[in-house]
């Protein structure tokens, strides 16, 4: 949780306290107020205890912090993380390129197709990654599209698979963003001023989807960085298989890597919050699991 988030939570609790003090039970401790605090602390413990446990476990390596030092000195750590980040960024770009025009067109011209598009974008929740990756391998490991014959081809295949995995998150994020504006009027206003579809999409619609796209992009990146099954079966040097492999030989280091990747996730969230500042839209993270 960011500092801003903590402040807002604190304000929320203060507001709740204020509300409670207006009740007839003024002057004595309200059971309702106690209940709110109980829920709050239960949430805090539920969230932080596993992190604390992982940290304590990672510190059992001797000398102190050696697990962290070992990880940070391991070139495979940077290699796998860098690979996953690059694949993640390409995935985000392809996903935005597919989902923004699709969601825009569905909202503008084909509203009746919306349930069908939503259904298709939800398929990754129904089809397990292992089924998806076997389907990809069996289809693209021979002519006429032998993707798996080269490293570049396998990486491309992995990226396509990740694009499919990102559908539910990216589509929902974009759709939520589009729902917050009057797409039809904005499009027609731009058209009446002489704008073509490219200009409308890039200069009118996309800038107003900034926060929604950041939300979708963050979720996509988080999925790609942590994904294990597809990267393993396509034999790609991604972060997921690296983390799993580390656990079988260096358990303390694995705990350290888990915390480091968690820290990176927080930094990414902070970055999104920073970029989203000044925008009237709120960051809406949808479809997160």
């Amino acid at each position, binding site marked *: 949780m960011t500092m801003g988030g903590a402040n807002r939570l604190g304000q929320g609790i203060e507001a709740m306290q204020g509300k409670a003090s207006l009740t007839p039970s003024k002057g004595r401790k309200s059971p309702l107020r106690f209940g709110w605090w109980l829920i709050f602390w239960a949430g805090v413990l539920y969230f932080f205890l596993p992190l604390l446990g992982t940290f304590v476990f990672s510190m059992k390596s001797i000398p102190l912090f050696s697990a962290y030092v070992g990880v940070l000195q391991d070139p495979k750590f940077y290699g796998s993380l860098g690979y996953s980040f690059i694949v993640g960024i390409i995935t985000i770009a392809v996903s935005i390129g597919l989902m923004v025009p699709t969601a825009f067109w569905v909202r503008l011209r084909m509203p009746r197709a919306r349930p069908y598009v939503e259904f298709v974008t939800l398929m990754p929740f129904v089809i397990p990654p292992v089924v998806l990756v076997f389907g990809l391998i069996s289809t693209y490991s021979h002519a006429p599209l032998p993707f798996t014959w080269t490293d570049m081809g396998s990486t491309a295949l992995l990226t396509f698979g990740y694009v499919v995995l990102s559908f539910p998150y990216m589509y929902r994020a974009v759709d939520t963003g589009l729902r917050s*504006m*009057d797409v039809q*009027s*904005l499009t*027609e*206003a*731009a*058209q*009446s*001023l*002489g*704008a*073509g579809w490219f*200009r409308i999409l890039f200069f*009118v619609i996309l*800038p*107003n989807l*900034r926060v929604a796209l950041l939300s979708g992009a963050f979720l996509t990146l988080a999925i790609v960085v942590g994904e294990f099954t597809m990267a393993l079966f396509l034999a790609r040097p991604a972060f997921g298989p690296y983390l799993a492999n580390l656990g079988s030989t260096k358990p303390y280091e694995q705990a350290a890597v888990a915390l480091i990747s968690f820290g990176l996730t927080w930094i990414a969230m902070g970055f999104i919050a920073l970029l989203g500042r000044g925008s*009237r839209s709120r960051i809406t993270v949808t479809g997160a699991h």
Partner: protein
Amino acid sequence: MTFLELTGIQKHFAGGVVAVDDFNLSAARGEFVSFLGPSGCGKTTTLRMIAGFEQPTAGAITVDGLDITHRAPNQRNVGMVFQSYALFPNMNVAENIGFGLKVRKRPKAEIAKRVDELIALMHLEGRADRYPWQMSGGQQQRVALARALAIEPQVLLLDEPLSALDAKIRIVLRKEIRSIQRQLGITTVYVTHDQEEALSMSDRVVVMSDGHVEQIGTPSEIYNFPSTAFVASFVGTLNLVEAGVIDAGTGRVAVGGQEIRTARALTDARAGDRITLALRPEGIELGEGAAGDNRLSGMLADIGFLGSIVRLRLTLPAGDSGIAREIFLDMFNDPNLALPVVGATVTVSFQPEACFMLTGSVGVPVPVATEVGAEV
């Protein structure tokens, strides 16, 4: 000379819904034309066809002699102002106004100059850097108007631009829109369901109902000489009374057993026909009136105070038809106004010019909903 012309325009939607049927209009350069009608009458659909957002099922649209019926919206040079303003949220006032010029790849200096001119014209000085969400509804609509005017469109289209604003701002803005339109001499089509807006702003008004044109005329013609019962009932307040024709040539008719006459001969009617007479409340006076005026007597049923107006409801005797009719008359409110008591028998008078027969009303019964001082 015709500048904007709509010929035989039709629009049919899926499921056989006829939104617009045989719409014809010729507007001169610089003319301000309003489409007036209730919701669902096809006025916005017609406007959207001029803008290019809807394709007509049949008919043609020409601007300055050029057929634009099948041109894309961004190829028409038609400016549009929306009810919801439709300002681009990611752009400030100056960027919104300059958007159309940027699309046309005009030099930056020219864009800046034009934006400054329009900001001054719209009284938006000092707000160039503000974003839409930092402005009031009225200010946003000024920006929307400036943005539409920036591209110097051949035709300006306004789709109920003031309906989301409060009454006071609406009145101020409609004056400003009209003043700017006159100043720039731009041909304008204005869609509204507010009769006051249409009558006060327009050179001509097109009254629409159920997808077809009921009447096209100047505000005065529309108000004073409605050609159909719908126009009469939709525009202003009107008494619709059933009358029996005594002599069509001299315009003599009987209302509730009392003889009156119209200023014009009843060309479509014959003696013995039953017709619908229209009578404006403000054309009727309490009392005997001058020599030559029509007179009707009845019982004062009610007195209503409407601020500056006092509205009296009078019940006429049943007469030949056997149905008692009611008429309304309006008087200016005056603290010293001496009014008869409710229940008293009073006489009202009006000039023959104040009553007229509605076209096509011969033998058609007075609509139940409008027979007593229809008001919409």
